[in-house]
């Protein structure tokens, strides 16, 4: 609940629906005997309308539907790991305060975030799947891709470690051992950056994952970690989500430190030439800030349980 901070700018609301039809008002012109009850019903309907309408001018929610005044609002489509780890909740309020923007975050898998960007439904994307990012730029959906930060993926699994991969440094060989043993492996299965990394590793291992042990969950990182813990299976996770959730899980880190497990995050502005309505200036401001000395310092300073989750990687500009 902590990250539910209302971080949006306040502004008077537009009123999209007028209370022309009160639901219970079908009673005009009745006999006077019914008047009292009629009035109470009409009053109730009016009260409900007022209640509903009043909300549109309440702070924090009122700025909805003022897209033409939207140059102070930035729409960021990003992955679940940046939001669920608490990183964005630590960074964005600082940026908003310094630059006077409001940032609206939609957090989904990398695949979905890139699709939202390609459709012009966001101003910029912060994702982690280098191949898909390059394709996004090559296809003209995005411009000005920049490195922001990196961390790494881990293979986590049950303490019993049936495939005996504990302490291994070679991720590909570990996956091969898990498959050979027929051990349970829970996959994101949602085209997220983590899923794309997993598929690349399976490909390197020369194994096509399937069979009873392989569960394709189609869910976010948090849910998949919970499932792996319940099913006592292996899974591939980013370090950020793992650190935020490990106290609630019956799993442990088994494989880490393989260079193949590097997890770089990139930020890309949605191409304003293709989507003229996007807030290109706002997107640029946020990208500049995240890759600035201060933004990079704050990324490095963000810790969960004393552990650094993201390492700055932006090149000096």
């Amino acid at each position, binding site marked *: *609940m902590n990250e539910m901070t209302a971080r949006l700018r306040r502004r008077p609301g537009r009123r999209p629906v007028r209370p022309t039809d009160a639901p219970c008002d079908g009673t005009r012109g009745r006999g006077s005997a019914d008047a009292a009850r009629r009035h109470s019903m009409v009053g109730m309907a009016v009260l409900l309308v007022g209640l509903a309408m009043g909300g549109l001018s309440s702070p924090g929610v009122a700025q909805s539907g003022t897209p033409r005044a939207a140059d102070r609002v930035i729409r960021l489509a990003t992955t679940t790991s940046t939001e669920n780890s608490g990183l964005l909740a630590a960074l964005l309020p600082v940026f908003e305060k310094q630059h006077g923007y409001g940032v609206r975050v939609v957090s989904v898998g990398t695949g979905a975030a890139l699709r939202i960007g390609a459709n012009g439904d966001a101003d910029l994307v912060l994702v982690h799947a280098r191949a898909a990012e390059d394709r996004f730029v090559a296809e003209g959906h995005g411009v000005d891709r920049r490195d922001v930060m990196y961390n790494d993926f881990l293979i986590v699994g049950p303490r019993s470690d049936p495939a005996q991969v504990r302490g291994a440094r070679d991720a590909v060989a570990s996956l091969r051992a898990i498959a050979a043993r027929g051990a349970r492996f829970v996959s994101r299965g949602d085209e997220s950056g983590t899923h794309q990394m997993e598929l690349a590793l399976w490909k390197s291992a020369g194994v096509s994952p399937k069979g009873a042990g392989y569960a394709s969950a189609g869910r976010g990182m948090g849910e998949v970690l919970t499932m792996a813990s319940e099913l006592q299976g292996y899974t591939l996770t980013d370090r950020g989500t793992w650190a935020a959730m490990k106290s609630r899980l019956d799993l442990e880190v088994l494989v880490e430190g393989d260079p193949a497990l590097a997890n770089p995050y990139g930020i890309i502005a949605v191409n304003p030439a293709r989507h003229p309505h996007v807030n290109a200036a706002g997107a640029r401001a946020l990208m500049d800030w995240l890759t600035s000395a201060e933004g990079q310092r704050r990324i490095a300073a963000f810790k969960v349980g004393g552990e650094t989750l993201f390492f700055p990687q932006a090149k000096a500009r």
Partner: protein
Amino acid sequence: MDLIEPTREAIARLVALDAPLWQVIWTSIRVALLALLVAAPLAIGAGFVLATTRFPGRRVLIVLLQSLLAFPTVVVGLLLYLLLSRRGPLGAWELLFTPEAMVIGQAVIAFPIICAFALAAVQAADPRLFETARLLGARPLRAGLTTLREVRFALVAAVLSGFGRVISEVGCALMVGGNIAGLTRTIPTAIALETSKGAFTEGIALGIVLMIVALGINALLSLCQGHGGWMQGMRG
């Protein structure tokens, strides 16, 4: 995990006027009520027409309406998403990921429920009511309103069913709202988020909050029903 701890947490947060929590509650209530304001008059009108008139294709329409009760909300969300996306036909409206988009989605979800219940209510009413009103000189519209007034107990029940469906709905709200903190996060989408983070206690606490909110709104709307239910029962 027990239920006492989450319950205590839920009540503590409500009493402490936890701002983000109240924001989420307020978004839920506001969106659901606006959706009902849009859907209910149309749905009740359509239900009345379906119940009282005869035209070719009416049976098909009723079967279709009743099948729509089983329509997954996530599909409503997906269709609406495709319509409202920048790439979609209504992209210029710039409504995707706003509360307005959620209002539209929930109105679409509530419509078949309220309409089907209204249809059943009017069909169950004594047809002589309408005829008598007409004989006493009422115009068709007046006579129709008289009928609706007589079955208002069932109509409010219809609206309450619609409310129950939309306030607890997660698929469409998540898809067209985007679960944006402080803007489009509702109680059910917040529960989905907490659950995805493995924060089950917070999830249950929010579930309890939803129950409390639903109880309050239902009590309020029940006042609309008045004493119609049992008074009519005693008269009849």
